[in-house]
């Protein structure tokens, strides 16, 4: 049996390894090594836990069986999941962290002796507060992530669900969570503990339903952050350094990602959280629906334009993920490169349904990461490029964000696609994007609309090159 001090040192080591795991992600070269540090940290933490308890009887076998079942399921999912489904997968994983936090809190509440927290009905006050926070945040993470998962998977409509009195109701529930936590800590009543869990599940559900599909990058990052805070809350309860360090890392990581995503849309965090974006704007745009002329073309025209270009910038968006067009796109680019055309990719921070979504898809299609650029790096190059190929993106290219202060997306950083000599816009129809507003780019003199499925159009262009 490991002494408490020695195991604490090992937990500290595994916490440090987790820090190094995140540090590795600062560049793709070091990232793989970073992931190995993370795995090593986890192995140390789990092994030390077994050794410090030192109970290798029947219980140990049962624990191993449950560990193995979970591990097999996890490994199976990790190998089977298509890269386009990554947002759903991450949302699903968040829900599991949340639920695990809730279960650990329940176990600790029912059997506090096992955790050195006192006895049932007489749990140390500090531990009870930490436990309640961990359980409540875990429950919110769980139900919120389930909703996010259902919306991303398309099982539930991606459009915001709003009803009258939504915000006052949410505020009321949040206040009652605080009051119940206070009462729980003063009375130690197990009924209050269950009520706390129930309303925390409810509020997680209510908080996410009014948020629309394209705001999911913020929601996923936010839930990522919550799962970290839940872990930290449990870490305080268990007096475990590895958990406290990890919880803080994950919590701040998710918070930073939410901030980056909000900035990418020029919206405040509260604006996103309160939800309903897109639902109200559609009526406004429907009013002035005048028919404006657009130029549309076919794959042949597009191939001609690109063949005569010397540089092409590709702007991918969520539509590329939906159409699974990343491989077809890479083949097109290969052909272009053979004709000595310079090709680069421009990624908007909120393109796709989660941070870095487009980068992963392009990496999957074997696009070298040094051809892929972020908005700030590439935005000046549009003016010197011959062709911009917009595939599945819409709002992030809308020049209205720079010109019309009335527009709901005014001030949002956009890619300066219109500065290109010509713009090819692959889209299934002229319908407005998520923000519910018309894209001025469609009607520009130098824009050629390619109305087709993204994958099919890309393949046809390649044939014509």
């Amino acid at each position: 049996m490991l002494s408490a001090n020695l195991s604490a040192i090992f937990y500290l080591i595994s916490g440090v390894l987790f820090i190094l795991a995140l540090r590795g992600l600062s560049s793709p070269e070091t990232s793989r090594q970073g992931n190995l540090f993370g795995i090593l940290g986890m192995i140390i933490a789990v092994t030390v836990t077994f050794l410090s308890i030192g109970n290798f009887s029947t219980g140990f076998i049962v624990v191993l069986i449950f560990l193995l079942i979970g591990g097999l399921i996890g490994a199976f999912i990790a190998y089977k999941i298509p890269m386009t489904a990554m947002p759903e997968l991450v949302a699903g994983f968040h829900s599991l962290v949340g639920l695990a936090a809730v279960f650990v809190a329940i176990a600790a509440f029912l059997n506090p002796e096992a955790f050195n927290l006192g006895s049932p009905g007489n749990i140390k006050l500090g531990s009870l507060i930490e436990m309640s926070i961990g359980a409540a945040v875990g429950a919110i993470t769980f139900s919120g992530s389930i909703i996010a998962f259902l919306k991303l998977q398309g099982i539930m409509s991606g459009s915001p669900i709003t009803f009258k009195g939504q915000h006052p109701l949410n505020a009321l529930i949040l206040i009652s969570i605080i009051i119940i936590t206070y009462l729980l800590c003063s009375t130690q009543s197990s009924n209050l503990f269950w009520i706390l869990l129930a309303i925390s599940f409810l509020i997680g559900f209510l908080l996410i339903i009014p948020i629309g599909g394209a705001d999911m990058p913020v929601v996923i990052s936010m839930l990522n952050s919550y799962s970290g805070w839940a872990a930290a809350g449990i870490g305080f309860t268990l007096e475990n350094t590895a958990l406290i360090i990890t919880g803080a890392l994950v919590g701040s990581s998710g918070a930073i990602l939410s901030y980056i995503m909000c900035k990418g849309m020029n919206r405040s965090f509260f604006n996103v959280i309160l939800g309903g974006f897109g639902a109200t704007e559609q009526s406004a745009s429907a009013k002035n629906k005048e028919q404006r002329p657009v130029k549309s073309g076919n794959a042949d025209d597009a191939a001609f334009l690109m063949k005569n270009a010397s540089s092409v910038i590709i702007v991918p968006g969520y539509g590329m993920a939906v159409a699974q067009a990343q491989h077809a796109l890479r083949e097109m680019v290969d052909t272009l490169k053979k004709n000595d055309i310079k090709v680069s990719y421009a990624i908007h921070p909120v393109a796709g349904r989660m941070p870095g979504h487009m980068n992963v898809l392009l990496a999957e299609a074997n696009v070298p990461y040094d051809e892929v650029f972020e908005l700030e790096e590439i935005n000046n190059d549009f003016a010197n490029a011959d062709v911009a190929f917009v595939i599945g993106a819409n709002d992030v290219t809308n020049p209205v964000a720079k010109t019309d202060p009335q527009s709901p997306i005014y001030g949002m950083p956009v890619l300066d696609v219109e500065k290109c000599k010509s713009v090819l816009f692959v889209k299934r129809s002229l319908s407005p994007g998520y923000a519910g507003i018309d894209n001025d780019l469609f009607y520009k003199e130098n824009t050629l609309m390619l109305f087709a499925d993204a994958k099919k159009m890309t393949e046809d262009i390649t044939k014509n090159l």
Partner: protein
Amino acid sequence: MEIDPFIFRLSIFILSIFIGYYVVWSVTPSLHTPLMSVTNAISSVIIVGAIIAGLAGNSNTIFSTSSIFGFLAISLAAINIFGGFLVTQRMLAMYKKKKKDK
């Protein structure tokens, strides 16, 4: 006067938030998706709590309510640990540099 051990844990927590802040800002945006999947995996270190709960009983009380919640939490966290690290590994293996001679 002695300092409550809670204060030490709080110190670790606060300092870790700062470490997280600086480390995550240095993560390249193209790796934000692997960042999320790996944070998922490491936050499942919550499994240590689940193992403590699962091993709390003696031979007569292996399947007490508390232990059962522990067992379930072990499986949930294990899905995340294995799934999270492996899918991160799979993603990171795809990030390649341009071949020089082309």
